[in-house]
């Protein structure tokens, strides 16, 4: 398994595609700005440098939007600011002096203000969370588009182009303006209320960032009408100065809010997609998972805790128990669940990550990796305990077998021999009656047969030679008994072996040789036993017809199981016509 790489160099393919698209957008926007500058310069509505300022502000919106978009791909502030640039450029067309373009400019004249309201309410994620804010933003667009209409519909030429004017009705223009002002004021007031509520709900550190941004946004929106209707007369500003003042205030909006998105530590939602891609390509190990999450969410103090059911509590990546922060403490926690089952938890600094939903989302992304890892660990543990218990059972079985063989040998067989001796004595010396002698001689013969049977039984259960003299002697004996010549190489067999290993190796050789003699028609057999540091290697080879399989008939199935239980390996290499090699490796400690 490779070590997990840090998050930086990994880039999801969609990110590359996005950069490409944004580069194109940026260039297109730049082109539009350039075109507008060219169009505006020759116009006579004001000094050239002031006129250029309008598309320049559009450029600022564009630049801020594209930057925010590329750095925070799934944050909507980028697209919003870039769209705002479009409206800016549209509104600035009013200075071009070309009839059709001027009309467009008149229609879009106040839309940039609605964009500022939208930006205000959508900060920091670029989405409008409450239904209330969605209504307000919609109202803002209605006020700036629909309620703007009377101002050009009834303006009369030459203030408005012919196509857009119905009649010259200054009274309706004034009325429309008043309605628009009131409606606009209402929108701004509602915005202020929503922002104030958000401020109150925010923790201290985000509040420090949000308060000035919100205040600046409100000032920017109110600033335009107030500066036009109140300040200008008050301070005696000429139209150029007024325009520059308004432009300056409004130009700061994209800069301030883009900076807020990039630097304010808010909403690193875009990188969660990268986290997902990273998890898919790497082996998400527990320690690396926590680091990756912290990097993704931008909180160095973020910690990932894992639910340990056997402790009924959380542990960290090293298995050390941890406590989740209590609600109201200066750290917050989000629990990760999957299919209703607790998997872990993320504890983080709520001043750095404002949105717990984001943390929960990140948690869901890693939950799958965590769960998979937990299941794998459980599976491994249960498999290990299974292996251990199988080995224990096999050893117990082997011990039983030895005990039985020895009990039979020492106890029962000895007793039968003594009985046979006594009956032999009786038959020979204790009576002169021939009939009785014959009877007793029969008893003796019967006992003799029983002893022979018992001897063979014990040999089948566990050969005495194996118990008394060990594996090497028993294997040599086996080889001697074969009707076909068997070459035995035990030169590398030394050291003591566990009884279970000896028995298994012995029966393996016995079975393999018996099969070779019975089925393969081989003329040369070899047995090789060697002890490496912690393994016993067994090899039985014949030059017969091959084609051996561990099927029921050959008894190799049982041997394979025994080898398996001890944690060893058995392979049968038996190509038809080319002999058979049975190899086994048995672990035997060091």
């Amino acid at each position, binding site marked *: 398994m490779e070590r997990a790489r840090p998050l930086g160099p990994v880039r999801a393919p969609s990110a590359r595609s996005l950069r490409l698209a944004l580069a194109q957008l940026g260039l297109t926007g730049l082109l539009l700005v350039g075109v507008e500058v060219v169009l505006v310069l020759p116009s006579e509505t004001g000094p050239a440098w002031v006129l250029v300022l309008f598309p320049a502000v559009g450029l600022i919106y564009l630049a801020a939007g594209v930057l925010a978009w590329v750095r925070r791909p799934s944050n909507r502030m980028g697209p919003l600011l870039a769209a705002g640039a479009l409206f800016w450029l549209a509104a600035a067309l009013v200075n071009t002096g070309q009839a059709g373009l001027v009309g467009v400019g008149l229609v879009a004249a106040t839309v940039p203000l609605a964009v500022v309201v939208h930006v205000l309410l959508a900060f920091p994620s670029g989405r409008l969370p409450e239904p209330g804010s969605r209504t307000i933003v919609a109202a803002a667009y209605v006020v700036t588009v629909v309620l703007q209409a009377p101002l050009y519909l009834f303006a009369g030429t030459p203030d408005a182009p012919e196509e857009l004017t119905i009649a010259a009705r200054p009274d309706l223009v004034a009325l429309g303006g008043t309605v628009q002002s009131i409606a606009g004021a209402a929108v701004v007031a509602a915005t202020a209320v929503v922002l104030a509520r958000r401020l109150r709900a925010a923790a201290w550190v985000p509040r420090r960032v949000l308060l000035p941004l919100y205040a600046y946004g409100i000032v920017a929106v109110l600033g335009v009408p107030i500066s036009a209707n109140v300040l200008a007369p008050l301070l005696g500003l000429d139209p150029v100065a007024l325009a520059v003042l308004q432009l300056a205030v409004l130009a700061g909006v994209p800069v301030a809010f883009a900076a807020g998105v990039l630097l304010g530590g808010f909403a690193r939602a875009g990188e969660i997609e990268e986290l997902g891609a990273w998890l898919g390509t790497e082996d998400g190990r527990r320690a690396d998972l926590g680091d990756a999450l912290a990097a993704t969410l931008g909180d160095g103090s973020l910690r990932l805790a894992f639910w340990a059911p056997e402790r009924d509590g959380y542990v960290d990546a090293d298995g050390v128990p941890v406590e989740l922060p209590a609600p109201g403490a200066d750290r917050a926690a989000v629990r990760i669940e999957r299919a209703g089952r607790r998997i872990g938890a993320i504890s983080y600094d709520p001043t750095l990550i404002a949105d717990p939903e984001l943390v929960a989302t990140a948690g869901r992304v890693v939950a799958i990796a965590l769960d998979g890892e937990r299941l794998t660990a459980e599976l491994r543990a249960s498999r290990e305990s299974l292996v251990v218990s199988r080995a224990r059972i096999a050893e117990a079985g082997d011990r039983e077998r030895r005990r039985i063989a020895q009990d039979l040998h020492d106890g029962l067989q000895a007793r039968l*021999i003594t009985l046979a*001796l006594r009956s*032999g*004595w009786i038959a020979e010396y204790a009576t002169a009656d021939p009939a009785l002698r014959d009877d007793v001689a029969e008893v003796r013969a019967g006992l*003799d047969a029983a002893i022979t049977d018992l001897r063979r039984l014990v040999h089948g259960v566990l050969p*005495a030679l194996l118990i008394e003299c060990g594996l090497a002697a028993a294997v040599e*004996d086996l080889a001697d*008994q074969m*009707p*076909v010549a068997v070459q035995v190489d035990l030169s590398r067999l030394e050291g003591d072996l566990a009884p279970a290993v000896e028995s298994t190796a012995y029966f393996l050789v016995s079975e393999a040789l018996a099969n070779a003699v019975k089925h393969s028609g081989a003329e040369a057999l070899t047995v090789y036993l060697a002890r490496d540091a912690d393994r016993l290697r067994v090899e039985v080879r014949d030059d017969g017809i091959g084609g051996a399989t561990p099927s029921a008939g050959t008894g190799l199935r049982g041997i394979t199981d025994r080898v398996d239980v001890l944690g060893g390996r058995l392979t049968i290499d038996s190509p038809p016509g080319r002999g058979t090699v049975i190899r086994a490796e048995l672990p035997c400690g060091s």
Partner: protein
Amino acid sequence: MRVVIGEDETLLREGLVLLLARSGLDVVGLAAGGPALVRPVMATGPDLVVTDIRMPPTHTDEGLRAALEIRSARPGTAVLVLSQHVQRRYAVELLGDRPAGVGYLLKQRVADVTAFCADVRRVGDGGTALDPEVVSALLAGARRRDALEHLTARQREVLGLIAEGRSNAAIARRLTISEKAVVAHTSHIYDQLDILPDEDDHRRVLAVVRYLAG
């Protein structure tokens, strides 16, 4: 004939004592363990030692070790070893290179009291006695040898009886053929097995067993 008996199974030991005494042997020592066997032998210098192979303390092959020790320390002592199962390697080890006065029998043979006592005497007199089951195991293992295939069934029987340590006369009696026939068979066997004909019955046992054991 003076005998020392080694056997840890009490009832069997007492049975052996009775049996051998009834047969006219003089039991001069008893032991119930391997190391415990050597002392009385060294002390009393018997003609024959009859011992079980498996004895305390380890219950593996103490009796065999003791027998070999006795054979090397007191070469004139005959040794008859009793085992509860067939182990060809023990037979080969015991025979070593001096087959005289060596016996290796299955313990259950004691029940055939006449035959057993005859075997005991034969060994005590310097002959050889190998259990027929040991010999047939040797023969079975050697059936792969081509040379044995050139022997007739009868000759294989004779070979087996030679390996048991029987004399020509005993073989003739057992197979109910004439001693001359036995001699003819044996010379043929010697040719096939490439063994030098030897007047000494004992040496031929060794040669045959060596051949069969590979």
